């Protein structure tokens, strides 16, 4: 049981309404320092809204958010910038900035002096670029990069911001398989270093595999919160996503979720057999090979 001084984010009864629709309907959860949290849920469940509330872009209509022991409402934007950093899902930035400049801009909340950055600022920025493996195109313009590379640059910027909490909206949406794993692993190691990460993502499998904690949202409510192994069940997935699935704990890898198509297939996946049939099937080698292929 983590003791309460480890809690870095405390959300209580958060409500946010858009045109009389309650996008967030009384959210309550806690996140501990250094946790890699996956925020999952179907479209419209409120993931992006929650990220925006956590980053002070939206002001919640009810409820409270505490970051690092301080009430978010009482923080100025500048103070907030030193505590949390946001990596967005869309690229709204000017495409003419160089990569190095983008990452350096992450140092904005800390800049002293009249105009130019100090040596330490540049060191931190270069370090962040190294971590994300984007140093070799430091001088190229953002517009010349692929979306995956852009994503990495933005994460580097967030790291340069020396934030305690990283709020990421769709970290792997634009990345190919290899990079997906690399990013998730990098985020996990960042979390080990003490950075708390909340990543809103669609890729359920990656989330359950890498995250320390999952927060599952549905229609603006927290449906489940806890370690993936503890909370992810077939029933949860069916309730939240409306999809039948097989949830399997693969040794040395972690949880694997295999979504099944609708109710048309007969046989083993027939409703009547249900869980039992699927579990039996998972034990067969041929079936496993099918998974790997």
């Amino acid at each position, binding site marked *: 049981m983590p003791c309460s001084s480890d809690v870095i984010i405390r959300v209580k009864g958060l409500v946010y309404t858009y045109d009389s629709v309650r996008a967030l309907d009384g959210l309550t959860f806690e996140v501990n320092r250094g946790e890699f949290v996956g925020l999952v849920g179907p479209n419209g469940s409120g993931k992006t809204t929650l990220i925006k509330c956590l980053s002070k872009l939206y002001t919640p209509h009810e409820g409270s958010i505490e970051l690092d022991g301080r009430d978010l409402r009482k923080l100025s934007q500048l103070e907030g910038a030193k505590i949390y950093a*946001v990596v967005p899902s869309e690229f*709204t*930035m000017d495409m003419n900035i160089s990569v190095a400049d983008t990452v*350096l801009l992450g140092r*904005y909340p800390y800049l002293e002096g009249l105009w*130019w*950055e100090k*040596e330490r600022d*540049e060191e931190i920025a270069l370090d962040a670029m190294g971590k994300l493996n984007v140093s070799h195109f430091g001088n190229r313009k953002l517009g010349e990069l692929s979306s995956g590379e852009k994503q990495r640059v933005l994460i580097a910027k967030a790291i340069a911001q020396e934030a305690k909490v990283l709020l990421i909206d769709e970290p792997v949406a634009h990345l190919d398989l290899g990079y997906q794993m690399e990013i998730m692993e990098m985020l996990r190691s960042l979390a080990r270093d003490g950075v708390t990460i909340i990543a809103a993502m669609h890729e359920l499998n990656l989330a359950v595999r890498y995250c320390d904690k999952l927060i599952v949202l549905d229609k603006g409510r927290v449906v489940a919160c806890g370690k993936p192994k503890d909370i992810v069940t077939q029933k949860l997935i069916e309730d939240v996503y409306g999809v039948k699935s097989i949830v399997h704990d693969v040794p040395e890898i972690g949880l694997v979720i295999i979504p099944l198509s609708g109710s048309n297939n007969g046989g083993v996946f027939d409703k009547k057999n249900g869980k039992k049939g699927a579990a039996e099937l998972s034990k067969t080698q041929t079936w496993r090979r099918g998974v790997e292929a």
Partner: protein
Amino acid sequence: MVKTFSSLFFVGAPNLVRRKIFLLTLFVTVGLAILAILILASLVFGAQEVTLGDVFASLNRLWIFGRPIQNYGVTLPSYIDWSFDIILYHSRIPRTFTAILIGAGLAVSGAIMQALVRNPLVDPYISGVSSGAAFGAVLILLTSIFSGFLETVSLPLAAFLGGLGAFGITFIIYRSAGETPTSFVLGGVIVGIAFSSLTTFFIVTSTREIHGALFWLFGSIAYVTWDVVWILLPVVVVIVLVSLLYAREFNVLLLGDEQAAQLGLRVKWFKRIMLIVAALLASFCVAFTGIIGFVGLVVPHMIRLALGSDHRLLLPLSTIFGANLLLVADIVARVVMRPAELPIGIITSFIGVPFFAYLLIRRGKRYAM
């Protein structure tokens, strides 16, 4: 080599930054050198032909006496004819300074607008300032009594208020439509069209012949006096300084409104204030010299193409090179068809239109709103 050179001067500054400081120093020096040459050219070239020696002799006399010696219509023999002093003091020197101030002002205003509207293809008049100024001017020409001097004092004031008024309406539309860049540009277009139509209506149906008002809008530095210089000086200097002060904030804005907010910038307030600042500057310039196009559009863009979007380079260099561009245009305007004074707006268009077309063709695809 760059590193060793700059490391002589900038001990303790990091690499990326050092490179920028070097570029800034280099181009500021180059810009100022060009400016010095152009200032001299501006004093030498004009309707009346003089040599560089004449100019220096004249400047020397002006320095000693403080003012040119008036002839009062008496014709003096040529060896003590100092009538050029009058032209230098009352005509060429104010024109030179005005060109510098207006060029710098328009370029900075354009750079600010481009940063706020997130599109390099806008100019300082995008908020309808030009049409509003025209409307204000025409209103005064319509309604004022025919006393020459009063007209020339109230005209800039009316133009200034008209320009600011048009901006105000655009600003209101912008706020009501969600404070997005697109809403600002569209608001400006609507307001511009509205004021232009009103202006044309008044011109066409007036009993007084003020069709000439349209020509005022072509922009001219040909008739400026020292008073104009003194009035422009504080406004341009202060506004340019203010924008330089916030160069870092403009950089942050490059990341997009949301990202900038999350980095600690109070985006809405910053944009509002800077929009007002840019509009003030543009209105001021238009009020005194009419509409001079393309400087505000072309200069920041050229610098951005050459040196990137870092406003710590963009803003100071826009100031200097904006001044240079307008000085060149002014010299050309008075020399090309001497002694006729071509409107300076035509010259800047000649330079700006091909450049603008080139930009659009080569890079237009990149700039989505």
